[in-house]
């Protein structure tokens, strides 16, 4: 095997670099997981703080994902099916959060909800977004909605409108045709979009940090927990939170590759 590899320098060098890259990525991850003993890890994971962070992360990510789906279905459908004035402007704008550093997105959200009269009106109405779990949800939504939108837009574009046409001749209203035909046909897109949005929501740090802050046991999601515990040298707790994040990413990566890998994200 090695002899064969040496026959071609290029082959040897390229394969070596890919192996090195794989090593460079897997070793640090393994380092985190193996840094403490298993019993210390389990104790940390079962601690009240980490349990709180797990619940808050899963919960906020689930809610922001549902919000992303709810708004992306009509928006993506319009962008896939209709031509309208300002369509390319809308397309570009909706992609902006992808390019924006999450930290900057968070600052802009903080200014909007914390300093403007619009933000104050929302707060007066009971929707306090600054330094609250609600802020985490909004931050995740802001950063992640372009992913959901792009996946659903691509999915809808890939479905021939003739399916809806036929459904309409079979007694459906336009809404029924969408509900009974297009939606079931978009199943894979929804699955892929939800997994991406949800797992990115769980990992969301920058924007959430700016808008919701990092308050222990209040806005402490898993990434915030890693950050807080690293800052106060609580290495075991930080590693516990990081380990959970790794597990969640690996599972979603697997599910995405398995069921939604064909969906075009970009």
């Amino acid at each position, binding site marked *: 095997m090695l002899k064969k590899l040496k026959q071609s320098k290029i082959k040897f060098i390229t394969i070596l670099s890919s192996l090195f890259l794989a090593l460079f990525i897997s070793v640090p991850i393994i380092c985190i997981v193996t840094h403490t003993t298993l019993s210390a890890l389990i104790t940390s994971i079962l601690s009240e703080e980490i349990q709180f962070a797990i619940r808050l992360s899963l919960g906020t990510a689930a809610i922001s994902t549902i919000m992303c789906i709810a708004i992306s279905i009509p928006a993506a459908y319009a962008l896939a099916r209709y031509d309208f004035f300002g369509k390319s402007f809308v397309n570009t704008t909706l992609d902006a959060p992808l390019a924006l550093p999450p930290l900057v997105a968070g600052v802009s959200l903080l200014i909007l909800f914390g300093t403007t009269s619009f933000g104050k009106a929302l707060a007066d109405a009971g929707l306090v977004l600054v330094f609250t779990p609600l802020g985490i949800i909004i931050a995740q939504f802001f950063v992640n909605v372009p992913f959901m939108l792009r996946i659903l837009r691509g999915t809808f574009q890939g479905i021939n409108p003739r399916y809806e*046409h036929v459904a*309409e*001749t*079979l007694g459906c209203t336009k809404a029924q045709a969408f509900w009974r035909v297009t939606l079931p046909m978009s199943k894979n897109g929804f699955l892929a979009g939800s997994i991406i949005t949800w797992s990115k929501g769980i990992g969301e740090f920058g924007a959430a940090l700016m808008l919701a802050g990092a308050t222990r046991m209040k806005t402490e999601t898993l990434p915030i927990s890693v950050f807080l515990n690293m800052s106060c040298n609580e290495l075991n707790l930080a590693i516990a939170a990081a380990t959970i994040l790794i597990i969640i990413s690996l599972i979603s990566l697997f599910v995405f590759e398995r069921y939604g890998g064909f969906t075009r994200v970009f």
Partner: protein
Amino acid sequence: MIRIENLSKDLGEFFLRDVSLEINDGEYFMVLGPTGAGKTILLETIAGIYHADSGRIFLDEQDITDIPPRERNIGMVYQDYTLFPFLTVEENIGFGLKTRKVTKREIKRRVEELANLMGVSQLLHRYPGTLSGGEQQRTAIARALIMEPKVLLLDEPLSALDTQTAERLRQELKNIHSITNTTIIHVTHSFEEAFLLGSRMAVMNKGEIVQVGTPNDVFRKPESEFVAEFLGVGNLFQGKSRVDNGIACIDVGDINIVSATLKSGSVHVSIRPEDILVSTKQIVSSARNSFKGKIASIVDAGTTLKIAVDVGIDNPFIVAITKQSFDELNLKTGGEVYITFKASAVHVF
């Protein structure tokens, strides 16, 4: 009856321009035209998928121009079947009745009935992705027919199928039409289909209807250069074919035409005008068909001349010859000539 008055629709690449048509109850109506003629968009506008820019559509004297597709009761079958891939054959066929809130038992009964009619009853639990093209098309037709539509629109239903399957399904379409007596509008680019199925037909080009009539009329009396060119063939006869000794002999009246296409029974025969030789004396050759006749007319068709030769049957043979040959042979109206063509030039369908 369906009446279309001055219908126009512009979708950019495809468009309809001032289309007027009347289609009678129970009629099998063909719409024939080349790709891009606007055939599909005509069907889609009749179905209500697109709203007409101008003009009206009447179904049984009711103006349906502004009525949504679901209230028109017009069935539509696309060329690519558009079966719902996530539903079984059974669920596909029953889709429309479910919309109408028919009871489950009744849906099951009707689905079985339609599946029987279309010959897909053994496929009810399969998904469309596992079916052949012919099976998918049958399912799609069953799905449309279960609604008992007043009009069934078929968009090139046979053109995605292989020749054998297409031929079988064509025969079945004819049977279904006579069983259900549904008004059918069938779009195609194949003249053969139009001829075999249609009681009347319309020829379309560039979004307009250029001629309407029985297939025979349109074929015999093309009203424009386009129709003549598009239909292409020049000689069409009906007759009874007998296959004997590896050759088909077709009695088309007072003469027998020999063909290499082995098909027996009642058939149509066509011969392209370019494939017929004309001579002033009988020629001895390997060609199996040779008839004596009189020149009935001579028409200048640009680069060639079209000569009608009366051989004593209802319709004269049309022969295309170059101007040089015409001059050399010194042909005149009323003159006696021989026409000769090979058995392999005789197209039987």
